[in-house]
């Protein structure tokens, strides 16, 4: 990791990989101040969009639109999937390999349909 602390609450990280398109450019330099990306070097407009907006609009744990404790949301998800006869697990294409493996393990456990963005 080549994160270099510059000033108070500011870090500069080199050789950052951009998680937007499958070109996976791995030469970005990202300046972070107070847990917010303030500068993206080497990135295209799409990369800038990913990093500069990354601190905005974070999701919150919710059930039926109401904010709940994290564990309650996870518990509700487990109950819904356990009760399902023909569940669908879809996505996987915008996360890392470890999460994909867990999705497959879960699909195997509950007899789910499993699909990713290749099929669209």
């Amino acid at each position: 990791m080549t994160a270099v602390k510059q000033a108070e609450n500011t870090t500069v990280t080199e050789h950052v990989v951009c998680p937007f398109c499958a070109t996976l450019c791995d030469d970005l330099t990202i300046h972070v101040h107070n847990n917010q990306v303030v500068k993206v070097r080497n990135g295209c407009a799409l990369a800038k969009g990913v990093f500069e907006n990354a601190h905005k609009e974070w999701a919150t744990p919710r059930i039926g639109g109401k904010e709940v404790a994290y564990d309650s949301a996870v518990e509700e998800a487990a109950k819904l999937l356990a009760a399902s006869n023909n569940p669908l697990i879809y996505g996987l294409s915008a996360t890392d390999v470890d999460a994909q493996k867990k999705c497959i393990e879960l699909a195997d456990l509950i007899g789910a349909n499993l699909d990713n963005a290749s099929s669209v």
Partner: protein
Amino acid sequence: MVALQLGGAPAATLGEVKNRADLVIFWGSNPAESHPRHFARYSGAAKGRMNPKGRKDRYIVLVDIRPTPSVKYADEFIQIKPGQDFEVLTVMRMLASGQRPDADNIGGVEVQTLERLVQRCKDARMGVLFFGQGITETRGKHQNSLVIYQFGKEMNRHSKFLTLPMRGHYNVVGSGNTMCWQTGYPFAVNFGRGYPQFNPGEFSVVDLLKRKEPDAALIVAAEPMDHLPYEAARHLEDIPTIVLDPRETLTTKMADVVIPVKHAGVSVEGTAYRMDHIPIKMRAVLDSPWPKDDIPLSTIIERIKEIRKEEAKT
């Protein structure tokens, strides 16, 4: 993906493209807007071992149904009629094998133009055909990709020739690879019988949702409400839908359960596969209060096992 299984693909890494390719064709792809640095890093201006002058050492052809911002990066733009990719590519295969069609104009393109393009492919030190959603998400779908792979194979009798899809989502290749490794199949898998079955059309997401078959859905790092056809996505509004995502999306807004997670490549490290199947370790630059997505998924797995045990007792 289906085309890959039917035909195989002459492929190589983007590093090979950068170092060796002197002919680059983009078909149904607009990299200037969808993959903006692809030109600079691999396929256009990039200087490579056999391309020391970069852009000047490459001939770039763009094939699309309309001019896009990518045209200005190309030496030649060939405009074809919408929905005619298969026909044009099939004629290119004919021309490659020395046959000539009865018509002078195919899909809005003069046959002479195609003849010249085929000759360029034959004469190239290494040619690459990158194809995008204009091929894979229009009528004909995998048949279009298949005819590209077949053309690529044909070209390898004359020169070195690659056919590579311009994959979209940053780890869509990883999702296919991981599913192949774990289940044997790249997508559209069903575990209903206790073992993986593969059947695109039956177990693919759009078809399942259109037929309103699933009775619950778990969406992990995807935006079906935005990206899927609405006639499919709207079924998610009628069934319990759980979404794991770092950020608010159209899908989290309609979901019954939202589980926020860290953003891979932004707030947590992780591995993703580049479009040429090279695994790359991503870094983290921000902090996030939420766990990485495999943690709630593991908890869900453990809880379901417990629920099953309790049910078995009663």
